[in-house]
């Protein structure tokens, strides 16, 4: 009863939010026709602003010669080079790495077996063998070396920080704030500012990666420590444990499996970042994909992309299996087997140092070039047969939706766009949305890449609409149907572990280089996370509530629209938030395959030294867009929740 009256009150006080939003949009379109072309802040591809030139001129001031950053760079560089020497690059006056392929495969499979189980050990050996057969052994090992270096360094900071945040409430609050911000930023964004401090190359790539990959480990370690049952901690204290004893003997052992989940996510994030870091000259598979994308060689890009996927799957499965291992200490039989295995590994390493066949991966199989040829053939065939259709879809969406939206955003005066966005933010999220939006918009104008930002925003918004629509449909379906959920979830999980780079390849084949390619890739990239959050939200609706709705004779659609979606609306707002962030990061990467705008500006900044400043400004603009979209949706989510709470209390 109380809830009904409160709804009525809200409606009397002011019109529904959706009406206000509609009116705002109509006013905007009307104003666009009157004001278009005024104050649109156009900036051509090679044009720069004084700010950009100033940044370009001063690029060396921060990093070069600064002892502190130089020291970090040298330490990281040595570490990475050491790992590369061991597994990927010719080293120590030998034409081959310290450990050849046989040794690497043996060690990896052994670790997979010792920490996980024999199934993932077989998978590891098969996966590594496969990338070797693809002719990408050295590139894969470079990628692996960088990933391992970044993960190890990352965990060195992340785990202690996570423990601290797990033990101290204040540290937890600060950490949550910082990590939330860090996770809203696309991979791309970390690269530009870091080149300022650490130049380009493997060291800078590793540092960018370790920063990008740290949040999940910090977050999950803190979460694990916090979710240890308080009674176990109290029991330890009541027996007179010191703080150190409680930490070492109770908290850490009981957090183990959750911390491993965090390490898993850190590894996946690191792999994805290492491939993207090819843009700042990181060696490895990313480099191969990037070069192939730039020359539109879909076959080679596909081959290298496949290798990334295989490595991603292997790393994911092994760490997942490691997390699932039960507490038990090893039985005697297992101990003996582990010892025997260790001996076998030593023998394999010795072989790989002694015989050429075990050191250099045999190149006669050359599966890779065959895969590349097949992929190219398939692409050509698809383009011949479906070209009319796929290109038709592309052109229809581009002309019918993307162009008008882009025209509205880029053609309106900047102050009109800003006013509308701030007003929307205020309606959806109150001052918590409006204030950050206003600040971000002012700073966006200051970066000098306003128009490119609007192009990126247009693609992002369009892709997000599709993502939310698809994600809602799939999420509701799998949230209501257990069987669908068990089928769909592994696919979604797999989708989330792939680096964004890889998504571009098939869409490049289907749609050529265009803005639409990036949008399509972004949709596929962002749908899994959106679907998952929606499905979890729907599943979290109390069974009794749904039963009550069914018992009064609601149809399935009525249950969905009147019960499940409204109850799950906070999850849905969060799904929109995550969808936006994922889309933005993909649209930006899409700059490499013709989406242009901010992503292209950043990439051009790495490639052409005179555009460096502009690239940096574009990187900043991406951050600002990300923060703005995140703040508005977060504020909207919080508001939705507040309404709910108020209804509950009355």
């Amino acid at each position: 009863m109380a809830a009904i009256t409160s709804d009525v009150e809200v409606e009397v006080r002011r019109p529904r939010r959706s009406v206000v939003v509609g009116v705002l949009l109509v006013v905007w379109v009307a104003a666009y026709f009157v004001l278009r072309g005024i104050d649109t802040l156009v900036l051509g591809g090679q044009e720069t602003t004084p700010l950009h030139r100033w940044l370009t001129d001063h690029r060396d001031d921060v990093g070069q010669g600064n002892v502190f950053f130089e020291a970090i760079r040298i330490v990281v560089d040595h570490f990475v080079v050491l790992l590369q020497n061991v597994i990927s690059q010719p080293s120590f006056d030998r034409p081959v790495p310290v450990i050849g392929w046989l040794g690497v495969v043996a060690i990896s499979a052994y670790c997979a077996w010792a920490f996980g189980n024999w199934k993932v050990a077989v998978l590891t050996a098969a996966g590594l063998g496969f990338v070797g057969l693809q002719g990408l052994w050295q590139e894969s090992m470079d990628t692996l070396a960088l990933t391992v270096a970044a993960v190890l360094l990352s965990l060195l900071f992340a785990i202690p920080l996570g423990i601290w945040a797990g033990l101290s409430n204040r540290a937890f609050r600060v950490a949550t704030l910082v990590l939330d911000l860090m996770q809203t930023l696309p991979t791309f964004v970390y690269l530009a500012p870091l080149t300022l401090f650490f130049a380009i190359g493997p060291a800078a790539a590793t540092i960018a990666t370790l920063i990008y990959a740290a949040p999940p480990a910090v977050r999950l370690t803190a979460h694990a420590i916090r979710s240890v049952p308080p009674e176990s901690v109290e029991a330890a204290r009541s027996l007179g444990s010191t703080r150190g004893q409680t930490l070492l003997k109770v908290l850490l052992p009981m957090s183990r499996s959750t911390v491993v989940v965090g390490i898993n996510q850190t590894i996946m994030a690191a792999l994805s970042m290492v491939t993207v870091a090819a843009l700042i000259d990181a060696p490895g598979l990313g480099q191969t994909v990037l070069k192939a994308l730039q020359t539109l060689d879909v076959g080679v890009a596909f081959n290298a992309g496949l290798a990334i996927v295989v490595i991603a799957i292997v790393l994911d499965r092994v760490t997942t299996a490691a997390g699932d291992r039960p507490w038990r200490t090893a039985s005697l039989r297992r101990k003996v087997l582990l010892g025997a295995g260790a001996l076998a590994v030593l023998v394999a390493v010795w072989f790989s140092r002694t015989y050429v066949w075990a050191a250099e991966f045999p190149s006669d199989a050359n599966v890779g070039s065959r895969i590349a040829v097949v992929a190219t053939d398939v692409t050509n065939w698809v383009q011949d047969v479906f070209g009319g259709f796929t290109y038709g879809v592309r052109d229809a969406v581009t002309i019918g939706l993307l162009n008008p939206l882009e025209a509205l955003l880029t053609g309106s005066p900047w102050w009109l766009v800003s006013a509308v966005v701030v007003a929307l933010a205020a309606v959806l999220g109150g001052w918590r949305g409006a204030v950050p939006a206003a600040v971000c918009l002012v700073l966006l104008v200051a970066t000098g890449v306003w128009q490119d930002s609007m192009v990126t925003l247009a693609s992002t918004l369009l892709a997000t609409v599709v993502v939310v629509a698809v994600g809602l449909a799939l999420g509701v379906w799998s949230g209501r149907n257990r069987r669908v959920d068990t089928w769909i979830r592994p696919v979604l999980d797999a989708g989330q572990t792939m680096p964004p780079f890889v998504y571009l390849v098939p869409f490049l084949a289907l749609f050529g280089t265009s803005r639409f390619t990036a949008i399509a890739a972004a949709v596929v990239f962002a749908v899994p996370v959106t679907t998952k959050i929606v499905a979890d939200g729907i599943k979290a609706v109390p069974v009794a509530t749904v039963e009550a709705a069914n018992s009064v004779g609601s149809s399935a659609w009525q249950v969905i629209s009147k019960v499940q979606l409204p109850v799950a609306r906070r999850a849905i707002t969060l799904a929109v938030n995550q969808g936006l962030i994922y889309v933005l990061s993909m649209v930006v990467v899409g700059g490499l395959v013709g989406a242009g705008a901010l992503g292209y500006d950043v990439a051009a900044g790495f490639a052409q030294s005179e555009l460096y400043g502009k690239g940096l400004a574009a990187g900043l603009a991406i951050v600002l867009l990300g923060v703005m979209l995140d703040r508005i949706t977060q504020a909207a989510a919080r508001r939705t929740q507040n309404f709910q709470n108020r209804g509950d209390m009355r």
Partner: protein
Amino acid sequence: MTAQLEYPDIQDSDALLSVQGLWKVFGPKAQRVPRRPELAALDRTELYAKTGCTAAVRDLSFDVAPGEVFVVMGLSGSGKSTLVRCLTRLIEPTAGGLFFEGEDLRAADEKRLRALRRSKFSMVFQHFGLLPHRKVIDNVSYGLEIRGESKPDRRRRAQEVIDLVGLAGNEHLYPEQLSGGMQQRVGLARALANDPDVLLFDEPFSALDPLIRREMQTEVVRLHREVGKTMVFITHDLSEALKLGDRILLMRDGAAVQLGTGDELVGAPADDYVREFVRDVQRADVLTLRWIARRPRDGEPLDGPELGPDVLVREATRLVLEADRPVKVVSNGTLLGVIGDEEILAVVADN
């Protein structure tokens, strides 16, 4: 709160554990609540409205004698679990005195407190608080391990208590492989392992099935008889309190409502709250003849059978009903009163 006045406590010198005016207040600037009488006098809702604080324990005073089973009883939210944690300062009390063997616990520093917890106190928890990554025997020997005893020593001691609580044969299983009742035996063994003077039980059996619960209660009675430890036992279950407790402290909203033996609570409830609380008790099993004896009426025959005042009503029923004249209740040769059929029936038929 009047309980302490009506039922004088054991003398201070005899007390093993003494609690004096203990307060625990949660919330902002909690210190001011016990200090300022006008705040201390407020009830729960008023206090929260005015200060944002909640008083979980309010001005409690009691003494626990050596070897006694002292039960603290109350409904959920009455502050009993907070109280038991305050006793070893797992939760820091806000105000009041806390003395163990005459030593001021509130003045003890971290190190001293740890030493006390390692050797003098042990606690058994409602949800067991076991360490899932350790085998039963390693769970039991945890307390010995952290105080630095050698492995053979702690293994031997752990084995002793494992046998004592009836867990023999399960040493090398992990907690998740045991039933709830068995898990709580592990909790009990762990608490006994470091041979404490005081055992604290925080609703140890409320997570168990009724059958297992009864079995475990019997187990505690047996252990108390065998090892003779002082016990402070928290429960919300009146029958458990009556079964185990030498004395019972009934709490409500953090304050003491009544402190006394089981038959005192049932026979002379301090107020309506206690009366309501004990209403469904099988009174015949709790009350002794002392509570129902009346003064002999004029001309009543006084040559009936004699019984002591501490005989339970249930045990006396048959004799009283079969006797053709009132039964005399006699203590040390003095006549306390007589009991006829109607007194007995009033208690027995009440159930």
